[in-house]
């Protein structure tokens, strides 16, 4: 071992570290650029008036995204009401029944759903709901989004519950607690942080979805809270404002994007907080 050898090794080491840091930095760049542009262009538009007024007809100045915010919240609630119970139940089933026809069926459908392009899910919801009801509706949008949330919730519920030690279940059964109560009162509460995290992440995933809403919720420049009528949403409003030829509407698109990004970011941060803070110590 000569001194030169050691020096070369050290140089290689530094070179390697440098390369890793460089690529890590490059992969962070898009995030910062997106945040930078959206904040720079979007934040100026945001004021109470923007948040609380409806879109105006072409040619009139001003307008806002109130109906889009309400619509997005309604879509989240609708899709959550459908997908959360189904997803948690399927997750419980998977963690309790590792083998079996139904279990492998659910597993397959989770994989397929996760890989299905969101526009296809939109078309399916169109065929199922919009065509028979003969109208675009919040309901059909909620169903399309719930199909997108479902695989995430099923997967995280299953993974969370699988990590819960078997001896907890035995402790409960040995006290004479019936099986279904053991699942509801011991197993689910022990996995609550993982399950909530999964739900929040799946909500974050669908909040920005536009494609499945194009044929379902459609968009609506008026305020609507009827689930059987077309409804507006933030991503749709961004699309609509951005496609227009008017500079003021372009800046509205930035403003709505800003709201959407802040919402998604907040959901992610809350999810992370819950997964750390509420974690069950076994």
């Amino acid at each position, binding site marked *: 071992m000569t001194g030169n050898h050691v020096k070369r090794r050290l140089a290689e080491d530094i070179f390697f570290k440098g390369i890793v840091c460089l690529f890590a930095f490059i992969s962070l760049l898009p995030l910062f650029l997106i945040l930078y542009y959206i904040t720079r262009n979007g934040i100026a538009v945001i004021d109470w008036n923007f948040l609380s007024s409806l879109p105006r007809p072409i040619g009139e100045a001003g307008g806002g995204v109130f109906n889009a915010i309400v619509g997005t919240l309604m879509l989240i609630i609708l899709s959550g009401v459908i997908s959360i119970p189904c997803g948690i139940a399927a997750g419980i089933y998977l963690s309790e029944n590792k083998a079996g026809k139904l279990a492998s069926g659910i597993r397959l459908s989770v994989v397929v759903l996760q890989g299905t392009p969101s526009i296809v899910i939109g078309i399916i919801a169109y065929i199922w709901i919009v065509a028979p009801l003969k109208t675009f509706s919040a309901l059909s949008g909620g169903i399309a989004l719930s199909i997108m949330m479902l695989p995430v919730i099923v997967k995280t519920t299953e993974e969370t519950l699988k990590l819960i*030690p078997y*001896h*907890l279940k*035995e*402790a*409960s*059964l*040995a*006290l*004479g*607690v*019936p099986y279904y*109560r*053991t699942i509801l*009162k*011991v197993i689910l*509460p*022990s996995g*609550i942080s993982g399950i909530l995290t999964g739900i929040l992440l799946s909500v974050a995933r669908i909040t920005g979805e536009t494609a499945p809403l194009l044929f379902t919720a459609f968009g609506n420049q008026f305020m609507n809270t009827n689930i059987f009528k077309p409804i507006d949403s933030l991503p749709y409003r961004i699309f609509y404002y951005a496609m227009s030829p008017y500079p003021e509407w372009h800046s509205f698109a930035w403003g709505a994007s800003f709201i959407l990004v802040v919402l998604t970011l907040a959901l992610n941060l809350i999810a992370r907080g819950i997964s750390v803070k509420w974690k*069950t*110590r*076994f």
Partner: protein
Amino acid sequence: MENTVLKVENFSASFGDNRILKDINLTVPRNVVAALMGPSGCGKTTLIRCVNRMHELIPGATVSGRMTLIDEDIYAMQPIILRRKVGMVFQKPNPFPTMSIYENVIAGYKLNGIRIPKPELDNIVEQSLKKSALWDEVKDALHRKGTFLSGGQQQRLCIARALAMNPEIMLLDEPTSALDPKSTSQIEELFVELKKNVTMLLVTHNIAQAARVSDVTAFIYLGELIEFGPTEKMFTVPKDKRTEEYLTGKFG
């Protein structure tokens, strides 16, 4: 017999085709500590899991023969009713992680949805924790999570949880094997105290422990009950050669 708590007659248990317990006959009298000993894999855990019918939860597990708990046929009872009369303590302490110490003690009532007025619950918690010799250590922290306790304290919490249901018999599967010597001797002293009120079936690998705390001992070998009788007698003049070899550490 009035004085018999658990009676096992011609009892066999299997996992699929694998017969683990073969024609066990055993009578456990009231208010004793009965030790179950034998080499690893001989079927001790299987036997006590047959008493509260946890054995049958494993797919493919079957049993034959008779077991009675105070003259009631165990295998004719509803498992969930049976299990409320039979307390179980596991090798590894397993308090419920989402519950406080207080809630852990009354978990048997809470999880079963049995409603009891608060003063009565307070009383059950205090009495059970006193019986398991944990009260003085936790009385000011009843609403902290049970998982913050030390291993030995957690195991005594699990004993309190089982005692709170007023069981006829307690099944203890190597309850001290995951604990340090001090916690172990605390729990051993506890057994001697507890047997005034409850019968205990104690699986142990520790021959000295069986000698210290048990009144009667069963020696199981390859799924057969080789010898069963007063601990003192078995430890001084074992009838069977295999028992003697086990006690002198030739195998196990």
